[in-house]
């Protein structure tokens, strides 16, 4: 099987995914992604000449809500899973914005 995913690519995907991969995990990820690419190749064999490109998986359109405030104060519930809370805010590691 030809190798299409370079080490640099898998490192980069790891960075984007915020994942630290060790060597075994990297190898596993490369082989997973190679399999996906092979599957895409398989699909590319299909003749799609007369098929319009699909831009969305659902056939529905125009699903809206009206501009009405329906939610009250749910802060306590929202903060339940927060690892750190201060004055009703979510605490996160030091970040500059």
């Amino acid at each position, binding site marked *: 099987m030809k190798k299409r995913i370079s080490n640099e690519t898998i490192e980069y995907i790891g960075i*984007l995914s915020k994942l630290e991969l060790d060597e075994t995990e990297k190898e596993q990820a490369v082989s997973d992604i190679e399999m996906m690419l092979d599957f895409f190749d398989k699909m590319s064999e299909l003749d799609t000449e007369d098929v319009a490109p699909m*831009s969305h998986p659902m056939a529905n359109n125009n699903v809206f809500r009206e501009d*009405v405030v329906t939610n009250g104060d749910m802060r306590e519930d*929202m903060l339940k899973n927060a690892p750190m809370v*201060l004055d009703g805010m979510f605490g996160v590691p030091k*970040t500059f914005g």
Partner: protein
Amino acid sequence: MLSKYDVTIGLEVHVELATKSKIFCGCSTAFGAKPNTHTCPVCIGMPGSLPVLNKKVLEYAMAVGLATNCDITRFSKFDRKNYFYPDNPQNYQISQLYMPICRNGFVEINTCAGNKKIGIHEIHMEEDAGKLIHDEITGNSYVDYNRSGVPLIEIVTEPDMSSEVEVVTFLEKLRLIIQYLEASDCKLNEGSMRVDVNLSVKKRGETELGTRTEMKNLNSFKAITRAIENEALRQIKLLEKGEKIQLETRRWDDVKGESYSMRSKEDARDYRYFPEPDIMPIVISNEWINDIKYKQPELRDEKMQRYIREYSIPKYDADIITSIKHMTVIFEKAVELGGNPKKVSNYLMGETMRLLKERNMEAEDISFSPVNLVKLIKLVDEGVINGTTAKEVFEKIFNEDIEPIEYVEKNNLKMQSDESWLQTVIEQVIAANNQSVCDYKNGKERALGFLIGQIMKETKGKANPAVVKKLLLENL
């Protein structure tokens, strides 16, 4: 050195829409609530929550698009823009990349160089992020997601502007259009309108554009003007030294009057846009577009013509009042309450503008009730107070929205025409100002004005000026 270069500017303008609820959930958009009290599983990015598009957001975006001569995209959809930052709880922002709702428009501006069309590349809808607060003491950061999911439109212009004058003229016109549509209050200082400036320079005559920078953190038209002047010069100086411009994002520091680099191309984010599967595509019919056009409120030019026609105020007045949306609201309300249009206009153009300027306030911050202005005009018309007092009372109305009739009564500010009382004051003033009396008798007309001024001062500005003049002349 400057004249050898051309400056090219394009803008990205974010505008917070005036909806009551957020773009994808039923949380309130009201400003200033306690942290995280306007949040729910959708805007806090909980797995499994389902965002649903607020129809009003779409209609505001279409209205702005139509008013800026855009084509409305008949089949539009949302995309996910992926980035990892604590103010963005889903780790992606729901935005529009491939099929934005509006494309290919323009806004015509008029500067001393003549008329010019500034192209609108696109307008797309997206959600705002939360707010990060940094705690110097603990070294931690804290997030308030009340703003997460507040609807935004981003207006992207073509790089059609070549000076800070064109940029500010364009922005003022764009802001006015959006305010007239009531789609946003567009306050730069509060962040409901945010402008990023993309700027590059090139040697005059060269066809290829130079490398651009993006400038952020511009909170007023003045800051935008200064930042553009500063950045154009910075780039020209670098080129003159034979150096290269870095493709980067810079942050403007308005206090220091300079900018610094925030991030460069090397760590440019890879946003990995892909279709947003949770939001269904949008299909816009001709009927819908016509309906939006039909419901469009009166825009500035129409309003100006109507003011001249219906209220018989001069074009000059109509032009100034309609240049600020909030002024038109006050003007129309005051006239509706029976205020004489020209007199209302005088207060708005004169004292109101003066006080705004003096206090460095935006017209949107005006908080007095039109009814109090109308009552004040009536007090003057009926001769209850004189012009000097009216000016003083108006300032009170402007500051604290006091009720003028009661205020005049309580503070004893009524105009005094009582001749015997005035006679006593006049005699005192004459006795204390022998020199001026003498000057007047020797033909110095100006001395009379001085004496009247002294009498007005003695009566705390309450005297009826006509009566004062009459009595004074009799006494001299």
